[in-house]
């Protein structure tokens, strides 16, 4: 990568890079295939959580039973990326680095509190996933840096997550809005919450105010309404062919309520 002097590109699943090359958007001076690096292509259980290699395909993530049990929302989100053919190659690390604000993996990983392990010329560092995106198609990675793995924390009893997106079709589309929610309970009381929103701002959002509205509540209608309002307030969307500013803003609140209900249901049976 250093020899390519800024013109090098990392190749994981290739489902974005090859399309960009074909469209003439990028013409890499060097392509570095990272799929022969073991730690980038394996899922390991570590300290009660999971370390997912950044180049592990969506299909392999979907087939990992214990991961799907602990983090069903994350696994669902990653398995909404493209078709079965695309899922055979596309990776969560690549989906994050492509930095589309509408990427499905983003809100679910933000809600999960995922931490990225990043390797660069100056060594390794950790970065919370919500700090990765700088804008559409741009990340905060320094030249020469790459994501090695994505770390999901341990799951306590009575915790659950969910990801929902709105698309006009049933499959193979890009999110108009995406919402990830992760909750933990003691008894009926929500003791921790994280909410991620996608496709409503230049970057994926961590919505702290929505989480605050849920924490300490029993998810009464009033708490859900306040969390939904916080989601709407956090939106800074654009008008485009997929949806208007008003529609995206409204849907952000709707998806918050629905994803929260699913995450809570999962927490009860976890």
């Amino acid at each position: 990568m250093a020899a390519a002097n800024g013109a090098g590109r990392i190749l994981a699943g290739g489902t974005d890079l090859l399309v960009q090359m074909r469209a003439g958007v990028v013409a890499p001076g060097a392509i570095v295939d990272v799929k022969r690096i073991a730690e980038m292509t394996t899922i390991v259980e570590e300290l009660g959580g999971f370390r997912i290699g950044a180049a592990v395909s969506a299909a392999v993530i979907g087939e990992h039973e214990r991961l799907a049990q602990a983090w069903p929302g994350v696994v669902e989100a990653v398995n909404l990326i493209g078709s079965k053919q695309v899922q055979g190659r596309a990776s969560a690390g690549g989906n994050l680095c492509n930095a589309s604000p509408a990427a499905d993996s983003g809100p679910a990983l933000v809600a999960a509190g995922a931490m990225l392990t990043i390797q660069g010329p100056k060594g390794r560092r950790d970065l919370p996933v919500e700090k990765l995106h700088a804008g559409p198609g741009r990340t905060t990675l320094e030249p020469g840096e790459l994501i090695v793995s994505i770390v999901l924390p341990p799951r306590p009893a009575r915790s659950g997550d969910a990801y929902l997106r709105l698309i006009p079709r049933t499959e193979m589309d890009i999110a108009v809005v995406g919402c990830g929610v992760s909750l933990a309970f003691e008894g009926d009381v929500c003791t921790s919450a994280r909410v991620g929103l996608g496709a409503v701002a230049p970057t994926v959002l961590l919505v702290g105010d929505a989480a605050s509205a849920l924490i300490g509540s029993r998810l009464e209608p009033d708490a859900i309404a306040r969390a939904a309002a916080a989601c709407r307030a956090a939106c800074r969307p654009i008008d485009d062919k997929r949806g208007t500013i008003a529609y995206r803003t409204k849907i952000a609140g709707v998806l918050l309520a629905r994803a929260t209900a699913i995450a809570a249901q999962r927490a009860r049976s976890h």
Partner: protein
Amino acid sequence: MSKIHVSAVVNGEPIEYLCDPAHTLLDVLRDQLGLTGSKEGCGSGDCGACSVTIDGRLTCACLVLGAEVDGMSIGTIEGLAQGDQLHPLQKKFVEMAALQCGVCTPGVLVAAKALLDRNPDPSETEVRYWLAGNLCRCTGYDKIIRAVLDVAADMKETAR
């Protein structure tokens, strides 16, 4: 740019080629190896006409570089029939007329086989979702879905 030497297995046969680093696996299959069954529809992973398997995993050959598959095993539409003996999916597609122009058919067959290899008894919904990445502009999909379900039912019958 210098070419890259690749050793792979295609439809069970060891094969070697030299490829341009920017060429896709689809370019290599069609233009260098003469395996023109895999079609180029969109070239961007949307249509599924170039569906192949890599080490048993379904993917689009247009989204893979030829240089990426060194040491791997590729399955294409040309590997479905055993000599003159069509694969049950191919026979059923002919019998039930689950194709019209035929451009999407090789990709649909490769994808459907990958589904049945994994899940020999899929529901209609599972078949429809699995084949969502294979676009067809002729059939309206229904005959394709029926044919795949029919093959699954035949397999169940035979296994009994």
